[in-house]
């Protein structure tokens, strides 16, 4: 998933506001406990996602990730439902089934667990969709700048910038090495093959990348890099940012008030 060059309300927001929105969403995910409030949060974020008009491939990816999260949460919470009452729907392993049954206390698929899992998966959906919205509407460099303005060290900012710059180069280099290995007759299959392949790939990949790292460090040092950087883009808090900030803060305060009956 990459940045979408569009002109939407999310694109106008300052990266710091987006970081605040992420934090607010994360807090709401933890605070909200009623199925209806979780549904409202999810629908609101889904509306934001639709507003962006993402390409079909992104919609497909989001649906695929949400489907995986939904199935995994339903199954895991169906099996490990924590609260009472519990109604077993399917007995996977009876409690009387030897040592395994005694250790696990029996493995059952609970009806209430399946419902609980379905409700809780909305927390995952909300976080996933908001993450996608931020990735699609903000350049990584702007997010790093936003983090720097919020107090994250500039050296860490530089490190993150270089990391992001390395990512596509590393993937390309890994592909090149794998092709070269296959041309030399390397055929690996199965789980042990996957790990052997990982070891064979890692060594040339790191050694080659360390060469690039040395070049980048040298280039930075000859430009008298001291950790502090200037940026072409300057961040500015607009009226829209303030409005978003105030509304989101109010929503969090209200959520806390209702959740803890203050």
């Amino acid at each position, binding site marked *: 998933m990459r940045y979408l060059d569009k002109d939407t309300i999310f694109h106008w927001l300052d990266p710091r506001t987006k970081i605040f929105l992420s934090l607010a969403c994360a807090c709401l995910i933890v605070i909200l406990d009623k199925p209806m409030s979780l549904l409202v949060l999810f629908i609101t974020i889904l509306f934001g996602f639709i507003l962006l008009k993402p390409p079909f491939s992104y919609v497909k990816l989001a649906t695929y990730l949400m489907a995986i999260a939904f199935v995994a949460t339903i199954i*895991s919470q169906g099996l490990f439902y924590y609260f009472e009452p519990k109604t077993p729907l399917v007995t996977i392993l009876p409690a009387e089934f030897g040592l395994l049954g005694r250790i696990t206390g029996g493995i059952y698929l609970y009806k209430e667990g399946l419902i609980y899992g379905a409700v809780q998966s909305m927390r995952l959906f909300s976080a996933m969709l908001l993450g996608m919205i931020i990735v699609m509407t903000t350049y990584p460099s702007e997010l790093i700048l936003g983090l720097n303005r919020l107090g994250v060290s500039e050296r860490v900012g530089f490190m993150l910038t270089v990391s992001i710059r390395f*990512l596509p180069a590393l993937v390309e280099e890994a592909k090149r090495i794998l092709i070269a290995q296959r041309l030399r007759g390397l055929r690996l299959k199965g789980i042990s093959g996957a790990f052997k392949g990982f070891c064979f790939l890692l060594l040339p990949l790191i050694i080659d990348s360390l060469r690039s790292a*040395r070049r980048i460090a040298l280039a930075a040092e000859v430009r008298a890099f001291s950790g502090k950087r200037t940026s072409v883009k300057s961040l500015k808090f607009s009226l829209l940012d303030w409005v978003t900030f105030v509304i989101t803060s109010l929503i969090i305060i209200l959520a806390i008030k209702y959740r803890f009956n203050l």
Partner: protein
Amino acid sequence: MNLYIASIIFIVILGGVIFYLSLRRRLLCHFSTQELVTIALICSLLYVAVLPFKFGLSRIPFIQAFFFSIPFTAVLVIGIRLVPKFGTATLLIFGNSLLAQIVSRGINPLWWPYALLSSFVLEAYFLITKNYLKTLVNTIGAGILRGLVVYLYFYFIAGPYIWHKFYAPWYISIQTLQGVIGSGLGALIGFALSKTILGAYRHGGI
């Protein structure tokens, strides 16, 4: 919610103690540009190395912890052995967490304590042993410690308090055990691979 907040307080105190000890032992030093770029490279590599496992072997239920922890720990060990300094583990683990959030998941500060705990535990381990993965035993110890802390924190605190997802004690035990074995194995692989890399580094191959 209380246990999660208590964990944050514990992590802050642990970080403070480690910082104080590093100041007293005069371990706190600046990273050169070369070292910062190397750490940045390993951060990216941590992200790339787990990708095939994330969408492949780690989707297999019940055994995902084992497959997931091997590549991560292997690359982490290589990174720490390349820059054996106080703070490298924190920059690598927290940097990787931030990178993953910036690139794919979106910034979520609620998961920062998880990354900070796993890095602070390693920093504390290095402070106590006074050894930055120079020996195989020390490396495997660090791997096992990382696996233990990360999986216990995830299943007992992060999962239930952030996602409201609960797990049975027997399942947590199985996953943690796999995480510990996987991290130990990953540390072993990382140690073996880093020998060659460090050799190439020392003899001017890079």
